[in-house]
């Protein structure tokens, strides 16, 4: 096993405390086995061994349903950036895929938190729940006046209040009550965990399928084909996406390549959150080979892009 795989493995085990004692040795063996398999060239078509090892680590979580918390995303980002700085060459398609994988893991982590955190009810409640949606904050002049006054006066209109901070010991009855509640909640939590375990195999995206197909030409043809359904005026890039996240990445990355080939122009209306716009610079027939009839039909079914 080369050093990079070892580095990845070490980081995988960064959150050791999360690993259950019930299956720890077995689990570490599984990791080793998996990394060994990947080392032999399974799955990944990425060339750079370092990128490959990171992708492999992410794959372990996404494809093989490991605990998403075993991935320390921050550490991986740091490692990756270090490598990029050192190497100088960045494969943006691979980088994009890695970002998406990292995002998927983050999502799995946050889903976990959502299920496990069981936040107290009051945090979810909005005190002024009956308020209407913000339809423009400067509608009334008094609102504008208020904003100006708050920003320009030395003192804010609210103060951080100072109150007494008395605390007392827990009474025995409170301890028993808490115990009673905790037992019931723990039982519920264990049940939820089991249900999640059962449901999980259905959840990960079809990751291996996507990483195998690095056929950029096909991706670009797909994006071009969608773009040609519009009349050539600038449109928001998101009109070309369907709801699949992989599709977003594919379209976004191939649109960048199309721009590089001077087939399209891409710009953002306002940085950093403005709409990303795309405009076709050449006629459909001067673009790329169109998709086959079958592929075209399949894509029409999968996307909700309007035909103009």
């Amino acid at each position: 096993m080369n050093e990079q795989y070892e580095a990845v493995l070490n980081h995988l085990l960064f959150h050791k405390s999360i690993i259950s004692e019930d299956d720890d040795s077995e689990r570490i063996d599984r990791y080793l086995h998996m990394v060994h398999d990947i080392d032999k060239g399974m799955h990944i078509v990425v060339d750079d061994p370092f990128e490959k090892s990171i992708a492999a680590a992410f794959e372990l979580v996404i494809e093989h349903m490991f605990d998403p918390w075993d991935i320390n995303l921050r550490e991986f980002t740091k490692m990756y950036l270090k490598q990029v700085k050192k190497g100088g060459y960045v494969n943006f398609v691979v980088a994009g895929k890695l970002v998406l994988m990292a995002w998927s893991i983050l999502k799995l982590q946050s889903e976990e938190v959502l299920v496990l955190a069981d936040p107290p009810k009051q945090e979810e409640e909005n005190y002024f729940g009956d308020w209407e949606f913000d339809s423009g904050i400067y509608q009334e002049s008094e609102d504008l006046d208020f904003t100006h006054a708050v920003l320009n006066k030395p003192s804010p209109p609210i103060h951080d209040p100072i109150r007494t901070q008395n605390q007392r010991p827990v009474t025995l009855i409170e301890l028993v009550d808490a115990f009673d509640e905790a037992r019931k909640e723990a039982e519920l939590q264990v049940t939820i965990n089991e249900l999640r375990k059962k449901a999980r195999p259905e959840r990960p995206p079809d990751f291996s399928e996507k990483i195998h197909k690095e056929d950029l030409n096909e991706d670009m043809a797909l994006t071009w084909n969608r773009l040609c359904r519009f009349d050539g005026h600038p449109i928001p890039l998101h009109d070309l996406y369907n709801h699949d996240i992989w599709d977003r990445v594919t379209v976004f990355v191939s649109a960048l390549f199309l721009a590089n080939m001077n087939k399209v122009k891409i710009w953002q209306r306002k940085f950093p959150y403005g709409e990303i716009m795309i405009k076709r610079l050449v006629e459909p027939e001067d673009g790329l080979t169109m998709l086959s009839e079958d592929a075209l039909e399949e894509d029409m079914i999968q996307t909700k892009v309007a035909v103009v």
Partner: protein
Amino acid sequence: MKDESVVEAALFCAGKPIEAEEIAESVGMEMDEVKASLKKLVKDYSSNGGAIEIVKVGRKHVMQLKGEYAERVSLMADTEISKDLLKTAALIAYHQPVMQSSLHKMVGGKAYEHVKELKERNLILTRPKGNSLELSTSKSFPDHFGIDATNRDEIKKWFQEQIQNPQ
């Protein structure tokens, strides 16, 4: 033991806004007595020229330092919220629900840091919407800042008054 002083003791001890029912239950008093005592206490404290006030916050009452005194002794308090952060909090409360991007237009780059901190303090709620976040106050916001309002118009009015007649 005077009724009124028992209620005063309850407020001192609680250290946070509490409802009349809670006081009545804890100290074994009738609701009417508690309510009458609260009314008297609010009046007495506001007129005695001291540093402490008892104020109504929605359905609750709280004992706290008057604003100007709170500022004067803020160095002694554990956690101080910066004036800038308080301004951002006030803008969110007044304009809510407001998009983070709109807040950014009002207060600039510090909006993101402030939103993060206010969220950590459980004072605001965030909800993803489009490419930005929709911000609104949490249930503990009016309790924390002692804002006596229960709906949008009241809170706007409350803030307008604070701006026109600062303490």
